[in-house]
């Protein structure tokens, strides 16, 4: 009994402890690491992945996957930047978010209502949206010529109260998402569907509808991320979002949200994404080339998830 308590206690805080140890270790080798400026820098760097991950967390908790967010980010950013030049920032943002909702609804329709395999559907969308991006842009890069004067620069390039706006957006949306997930009926339905789909259907929670809305949230968050990214870069290449889906998933997994659904939280995702950011930043400050972080990420994911799982079940079949 005692050891179970110890393990479950470690499970809850183990990740945090490991994270703090890591932060301490890196700060010994670099004075700059734990400075306010650097911390804000890291948070700004992870704000785009983090924003997406907050939305995708809903999908993962329902027991599904969304691999299309990277391609979706590309498409939405290209759309946003191009429309910014044509119809102005405000309309472009409205258009981008509307497109995001439509794409999410399409994913949700196929996975939620038609009950197709989420991995394959979103994989197909990954490919399809890449094509759609090229069709839209004609293969050329887009950029915003009046980057210094447009108010659109607010989202990615300015500060408020000394904090970068992307960080405020990231944490703000995170707080709202956490509220929705823990304090609303919809949030409880998301957990219910991921925990036991059959039981939730029998108790009157439509799993199809819940999954449908989870995908819309995932896409909407990707739309917000596109606003930050477009404003930060003031342009978009046709590959700008490539690979984001992997980082997003890595962050969610690292946070300890189960891929089987039914458990997880927004703050865990934020923590996981922030950990990835600090690992990357710390290794760079220590003088390692950027690709060493990938190797470290691999090791950290396996150790973190294994510890997490060992705490959750006593006996593991297969």
């Amino acid at each position, binding site marked *: 009994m005692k050891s179970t308590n110890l393990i479950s206690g470690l499970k809850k805080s183990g990740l945090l402890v490991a994270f703090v140890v890591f932060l301490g270790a890196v700060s010994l080798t670099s004075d700059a690491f734990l400075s306010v400026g650097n911390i804000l820098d890291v948070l700004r760097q992870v704000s785009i992945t983090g924003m997406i991950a907050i939305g995708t967390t809903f999908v993962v908790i329902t027991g599904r996957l969304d691999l299309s967010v990277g391609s979706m980010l590309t498409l939405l950013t290209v759309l946003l930047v191009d429309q910014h030049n044509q119809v102005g920032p405000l309309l472009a943002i409205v258009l981008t978010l509307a497109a995001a909702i439509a794409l999410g609804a399409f994913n949700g329709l196929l996975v939620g209502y038609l009950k197709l395999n989420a991995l394959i559907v979103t*994989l197909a969308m990954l490919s399809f949206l890449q094509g759609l991006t090229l069709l839209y842009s004609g293969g050329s890069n887009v950029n915003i010529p009046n980057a210094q004067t447009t108010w659109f620069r607010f989202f990615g390039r300015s500060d408020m109260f000394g904090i970068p706006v992307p960080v405020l957006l990231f944490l703000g949306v995170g707080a709202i998402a956490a509220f929705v997930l823990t304090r609303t009926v919809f949030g409880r339905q998301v957990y219910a569907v991921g925990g036991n789909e059959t039981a939730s259907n029998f108790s009157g929670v439509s799993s199809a509808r819940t999954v449908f809305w989870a995908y819309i949230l995932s896409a909407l968050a990707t739309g917000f991320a596109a606003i930050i990214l477009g404003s930060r870069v003031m342009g978009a290449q046709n590959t700008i979002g490539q690979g984001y889906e*992997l980082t997003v998933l890595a962050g969610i*997994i690292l946070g300890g949200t189960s891929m089987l659904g039914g458990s997880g939280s927004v703050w865990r995702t934020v923590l996981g994404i922030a950990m990835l950011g600090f690992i990357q930043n710390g290794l760079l400050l220590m003088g390692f*080339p950027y*690709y060493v972080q990938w190797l470290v990420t691999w090791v950290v994911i*396996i150790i973190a*998830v294994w510890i997490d799982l060992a705490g959750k079940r006593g006996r593991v*079949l297969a």
Partner: protein
Amino acid sequence: MTMNTGAQSRHTNGAVTWLFRNHIWLFLGLAIAIFSLASPYFLTVNNISNVLTQGAFIGILAVGMTLVMIDGEIDLSVGAILALSTALAIGLQEQIGVWPAVLAGLLSGAALGFFNGVITAFSGMHSFIVTLGALIGIRGLVFIYTGEDALMVQDFSYTEYAEIYLGPVSVTALTFFVLALFFQWVLTSTRHGRETFAIGDNIEAAHDAGINIKRHKIINFSICGTMAAVAGILLSMRLGTAEPNAGKIWELWTIIAVVLGGTRLTGGFGSMWKTIGGVMTLAVLRNGLRLLNTPNYVELMVMGAVLILALLLDRVLSSQTEAR
């Protein structure tokens, strides 16, 4: 629904059922027919030889992926393993000679596959997580080894191995077909194959029946890693260079090919024949669309649409079989 028809039509009925169950061949036949009509260059020996070679790289990855998927698992790391074996096979040639380098490449794939299998089997983590980590980490290993630059083979006679042809069939394509047929035999005629199906179909029942689940999963992941290395070696022979970004997102094309063929992600159902069909359909689509000079985005969009279509078709058909 069609079971009530008279005995005289049972024969044609069987053929139709077979085609429905193996609908990938319908797709493939349709694709070949369309492209033959649309382009005079499609049905030439030269082009078909090209299609076979181009498809074979994804094909060899797909052979391993099929085994892992029948087990109810997935391997996202095959593209990264391919890149590492390519880099080792080319990079080590100067120090240890051509064939030892090739062997080192193969062993790296086997070892990483084994590692994925061990972690998956013993931790209880889903293989999606384990191999997603591996996909990111192994790519890091590749970059650490190559230092971001493409490695170039010193002795270009190495690239001549890729030019060996048996009639119109390149050594790469031949390797794919031989491996696919061999592992089809393994699947249907060995204990390991049968138990792989049993595990994917119902893991608890397999466990209760005394099947060593961990062992079979580890074997299949090891095979999958080795297949990725084989594809990597063949790629290194064909290109003569090792790019650190080689094989990027090939794991996705591989999954697409296998699922298109009709092997189920949920495990317990599939075959190498289906995978050959899926791989060839994908290769024909890519080749045909390029012959027709369609822009790149058409290929990407068609691929996505075909995949969802295949999934819908599979859904309709499997609900029919369940109803019986």
